[in-house]
């Protein structure tokens, strides 16, 4: 293993005193390796200048900076040209030279996808925090999940999906074709897009719906208004928007509570008090 470790990036190249020697990224190296194997196929098709560029980058990438004192004599024209091309890159880090080499190759060979070499990600052994997944109503014993009374139409499905990702363009198109969709209710909880967008915090959607004259006092099955949702989810900005659009501070939900009575955030509560 020691051999491999050493050979792969550290061996046989002169130390550069000025630069921090960073180990080379494994994936970049893989990319660079792949690029070098492609060059021979192109040599007859490219001009001398480009070849020299490749040469200079290659040497810099593999060996690091050239030693200006050790170059060939000026009369050794070809060798000198190659050497100068190498010398020209001496300020580059080895990683940078590899990247530049890959970029040059990618320009030359448009069929080559450098990122294909990086499909195998490193960091595979990494210890990663576990995450939680989807919160379903079934996770709680007091869940009341009613089977849908009315299934969503295809357009309604698209409408709610676009709402969830704040895709205003799609919503605008759907609304143009079917103006009544603005008050459509979803199949699980009978909530309009405005109620959902307030609940989930899709601010641009709320803005868009208000601009299109949505009913800001529409309610869900428990008589909750958008303002009730803004109150419970602590969304002061949306509460402000809704109030400006004429939302009712004294609307009562099925439990007889106003939005402010559903709110446990001091400041927002004050703002919502009728």
């Amino acid at each position: 293993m020691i051999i491999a470790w050493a050979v792969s990036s550290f061996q046989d190249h002169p130390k550069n005193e000025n630069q921090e020697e960073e180990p080379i990224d494994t994936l970049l190296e893989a990319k660079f390796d792949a690029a070098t194997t492609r060059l021979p196929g192109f040599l007859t098709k490219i001009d001398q200048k480009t070849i020299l560029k490749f040469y200079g980058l290659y040497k810099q990438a593999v060996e690091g900076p050239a030693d200006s004192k050790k170059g060939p004599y000026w009369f050794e024209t070809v060798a000198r040209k190659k050497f100068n091309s190498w010398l020209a890159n001496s300020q580059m880090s080895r990683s940078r030279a590899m990247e530049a080499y890959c970029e040059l190759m990618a320009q030359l060979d448009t069929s080559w996808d450098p990122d294909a070499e990086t499909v195998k990600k490193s960091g595979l052994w990494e210890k990663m925090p576990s995450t939680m997944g989807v919160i379903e109503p079934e996770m709680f014993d007091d869940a009341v999940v009613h089977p849908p009374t009315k299934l969503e139409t295809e357009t309604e499905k698209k409408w709610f999906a676009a709402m969830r990702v704040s895709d205003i363009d799609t919503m605008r198109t759907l609304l143009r074709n079917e103006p009544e969709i603005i008050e459509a209710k979803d199949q699980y909880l009978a909530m309009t897009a405005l109620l959902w967008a307030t609940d989930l915090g899709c601010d641009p959607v709320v803005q868009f719906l208000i601009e299109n004259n949505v009913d800001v006092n529409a309610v869900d099955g428990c008589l909750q208004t958008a303002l009730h949702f803004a109150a419970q989810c602590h969304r002061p900005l949306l509460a402000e928007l809704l109030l400006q659009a004429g939302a009712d501070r004294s609307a009562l939900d099925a439990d007889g509570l106003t939005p402010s009575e559903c709110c446990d955030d001091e400041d927002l509560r004050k703002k919502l008090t009728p």
Partner: protein
Amino acid sequence: MSHGHSHDGAPCGGHHGDDGAGGSRPSVNDVQALVDQLRLAGVDVSNMPNIPTAPRDMDEARSKSFQFWSTQPVPQMDETVPADVNCAIEENIALDKVRAEPFSLPAGFRWSNVDLSDEEQLNELYNLLTRNYVEDDDSMFRFDYSADFLKWALQVPGFRPEWHCGVRADSNNRLLAFIGAVPQTVRVYDKTVNMVEINFLCVHKNLRSRRVAPVLIREITRRVNVTGIFQAAFTAGIVIPKPVSVCRYYHRSLNPRKLIDVRFSHLSAKMTMARTIKLYKLPEETATRNLREMKSTDVPQVFKLLTTSLKQYSLAPVYNSEEELAHALVPKKGVVYSYVAENQNGKITDFVSFYSLPSTVMGHTTHKTIYAAYLYYYVAGSVTPKQLINDSLILANREKFDVFNALDLMHNEKIFSDLKFGKGDGNLQYYLYNWKCADMKPSQIGLVLQ
């Protein structure tokens, strides 16, 4: 146990200089020469860094070959160890037979102990462990061990400086790899064994996939062997030969809005945020009225309480002194939180603790960190485990944690659904090095590693 392979089949990819540094000689046909040079140098695809895949479950692991772990004293992946076997795999080596010299590192690198009492070195280790992740990976969270956490986990009573084992580059002295070991007595079924816990294995991202991890593991093994210890316990998210138990993380939201915002969890189409917030809301006060923060003076009672309680598990730590227990459990803000219930007679009847291990949120504009509490040790004496753990949710919430995590070990699994824990997407495997024993169910595990 020092299986001294000098080469464990590492990929030998690499560039060999074309004609030596600086020594270009004139050539007749430039283009042809270049072609030859590049052919010589051009690395064959089969020699490219061969990045192996890390198995994340038992099935994947069964079909994989383990270049390194197959050379180590661990049970085979498909081995079923009978219930009456509970012993070392390799006999202890006489101390004068243990390899005395460190495993060699390539030229340009050296072993270097990391002294965590030195602010600068502590910070270097912190950066290596937390700032050194592979970019453009699609995972969104990373552990963010704090400096205080590292000191707590690594500088336990009786720690040895040479077990905080680092690798540095000679050229710029940078810390490029680390592995840590701490002494811990562990009982496995009916045998009590002096072990170490191995943790914080880490290799600089640019040195990954070059078989550096195996060198670190061999070297720490050697350094532990020379002190006469031949067993170790550790945990990992990956599957290698062979887990003694496979545990699962569960998560209890304390701050659901934030967890959903950062996509730590998601809402189903049937669930509103408003309802989620309501369902996860916790009372302000604990149900166990006399629960209070643990103090140093509680150590002797907690020691007795916990020592007795741990006897019910098949894999559990053994605290050899009150000092060891005090280090693990006396509260340290931002690191470990412990609470006890004391009755009118001054007797401690219950005890619960959790530790703090935040995660960094990658690329989020408003939230940088998730504050996570992890359930640690507990003893429910006068109340049910369910009430005690629910109280610890309340206490963690008071301390502004966003989520409370627990493994399905000890009695935890029975209370998860009542306390609204959701199943996580990550397993945690428990391993013993150089030990062979029957597999354990998570509920048999009483050992919690950070």
